């Protein structure tokens, strides 16, 4: 077990290193931090630009491999370098990780719980009205890209604020309002108002995915012999379904849950950007626009680690839930 885990972690470490290096090299080649200085007025002298870029380890006149070596040495010491603005990437990302985390956790929990519930209900009464309705809805939802959904939500919220509530109930931009002096509950309410729309936009898609997945897993086990055995023992259909079918069908879904968590850290990119949340995803887009090589590389590294941790967590969860997989 220990040996296996060590080998696997080593493999993961190699993957992370290669992925981050690739991301860095790609970003350092394709992005052009020098162009950031081109539009400044007055135009800074070339020597100053060079000096500044060199200080940030972004000078394209330094050989690529040398820049890479400098960057890699920093990363090994836990330093991701500085952004184009000169601020440390570490500080910025530390702040942003929390933001993204809050959004993703809430969205994923809502999405998966509701999705699993809907899927299980739909499967228990296959071809019933609920099954048809949830199938239809999830088809529609899955056809709506997040960027469209988020914009639709903003339009609907704007409309509702104006015509239904007559005041700003749903706040569509940012994580919280600045300069509020309404005490704790006022702050909490304000945060909640900001939270609703991004969470909805994130979880609606997840509900659709999870409900489809849960439904299929559930249908797979509904016909299983052991559900028949449970009924032959004298359990009612409902009890047999919950105790035997649902429990078994949850295993792959739980695994999928853990995996989704890892991909969402950057997957919330669109939601964050559109709703103006200052999370990792937003920063990813911003940093590409700003030619911010170091930030791009740092986020890629984080994303890679997140995906691999999630896949490891998914496997561990699978082992914990399924005695057949568990190593004895």
């Amino acid at each position: 077990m220990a040996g296996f885990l060590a080998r696997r972690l080593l493999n993961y470490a190699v993957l992370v290193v290669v992925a981050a290096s690739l991301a860095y090299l790609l970003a350092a080649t394709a992005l052009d931090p020098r162009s950031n200085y081109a539009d400044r007025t007055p135009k800074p002298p070339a020597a100053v630009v060079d000096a500044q870029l060199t200080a940030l380890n972004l000078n394209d006149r330094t050989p690529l491999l040398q820049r890479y070596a400098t960057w890699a040495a920093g990363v090994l010491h836990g330093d991701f370098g500085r952004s184009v603005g000169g601020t440390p990437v570490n500080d910025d990302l530390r702040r942003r990780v929390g933001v993204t985390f809050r959004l993703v956790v809430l969205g994923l929990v809502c999405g998966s719980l509701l999705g699993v519930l809907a899927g299980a209900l739909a499967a228990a009464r296959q071809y019933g009205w609920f099954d048809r309705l949830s199938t239809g809805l999830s088809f529609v939802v899955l056809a709506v890209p997040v960027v469209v959904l988020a914009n639709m939500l903003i339009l609907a919220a704007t409309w509702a604020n104006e015509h239904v509530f007559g005041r700003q109930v749903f706040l569509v931009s940012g994580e919280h309002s600045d300069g509020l002096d309404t005490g704790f509950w006022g702050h909490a309410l304000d945060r909640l108002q900001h939270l609703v729309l991004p969470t909805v936009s994130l979880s609606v898609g997840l509900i659709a995915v999870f409900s489809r997945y849960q439904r299929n897993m559930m249908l797979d086990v509904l016909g299983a012999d052991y559900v028949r055995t449970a009924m032959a023992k004298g359990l009612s259909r409902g009890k047999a379904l919950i105790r035997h079918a649902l429990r078994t069908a949850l295993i792959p879904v739980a695994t999928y849950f853990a995996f989704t968590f890892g991909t969402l850290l950057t997957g919330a990119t669109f939601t964050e950007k559109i709703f103006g949340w200052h999370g990792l995803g937003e920063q990813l887009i911003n940093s590409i626009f700003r030619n911010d090589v170091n930030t791009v590389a740092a986020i890629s590294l984080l994303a890679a680690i997140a995906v691999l941790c999630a896949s490891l967590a998914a496997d561990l969860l699978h082992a914990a839930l399924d005695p057949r997989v568990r190593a004895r």
Partner: protein
Amino acid sequence: MTLSEEELAEELRDGVMAGAPSRTRLIAGRFFRSGQGRLGFAVLALMFLLAFAGPLVSPWSYLDKDFTAFLQPPSPGHWFGTLQTGADVFAVTLRGMQKSLVVGLLAALVSTALAAVAGAFAGYFLGWTDRTVTWVSDLLLVLPAFLVLAIMSPLFGSGQWPLFVITLALFLWMVTSKVVRGMTISTKEREFIQAARYMGVPPVRIIFRHVIPNLSSLLIVDATLNVSTAILTETSLSYFGFGIQPPDVSLGTLIADGSRTAVYAPWTFWFVAGLLVVTVLAVNLVGDALRDAFDPSSKRAR
């Protein structure tokens, strides 16, 4: 799998052939018998017709700008209204759909083909082939696809969209290839493959003649569903300016422009968004109905 033409001719001479292979017809029958399949197919066909024949009947081309009408609501002159630039929404939407459909289809085809070959080889040969393929696909799964595509976006400008398609496909094949790999490993144990091996049929021929054709249902369904994934990815990328580059338009760039003016000029957003959703929905319906048609025993849907 049917006879090659040469053999067919020979067999017809020998007079052995009788009756036509019926599998395709059977599946088509099952597909069109389901309401879902019919609806999806009809809508999709309509969308294609609209995207490629629509511009012929439209009075405006997507490059035209009507300087007498900026941001005007739908009217007989401009069926879907106009943009801030004076461009005809109907014309640019159709242009965007063309691009999105073509990009989606091609990316899906390329990625599924890649997935089939990589997965089948990895699953059949195992050993180092498998390790290499698995490692590469893990690496691509770990790299944020969005990031790579975004960084490379400057390369996609000036009519370089085929490069975009290939890059997009490069990030779509991994999951399918893992499924194909798993199924190849189990298919390989099936006795007809063993029989072919013990007959002395070379491995590569077994892969292309037995393994991949037997996964064709999975692959066709997957290719269909990849079309929608590709369209959605393309839209999102283009929304942020990382996909199809101006002067070309795609649904994504149009939605990005439209969302800015949507509050006071709804037509700039809703027509494009609506057509996109309907197209993707139709593709998904087709994929789902195909899955049922291939495998009537499992009534599943994603």
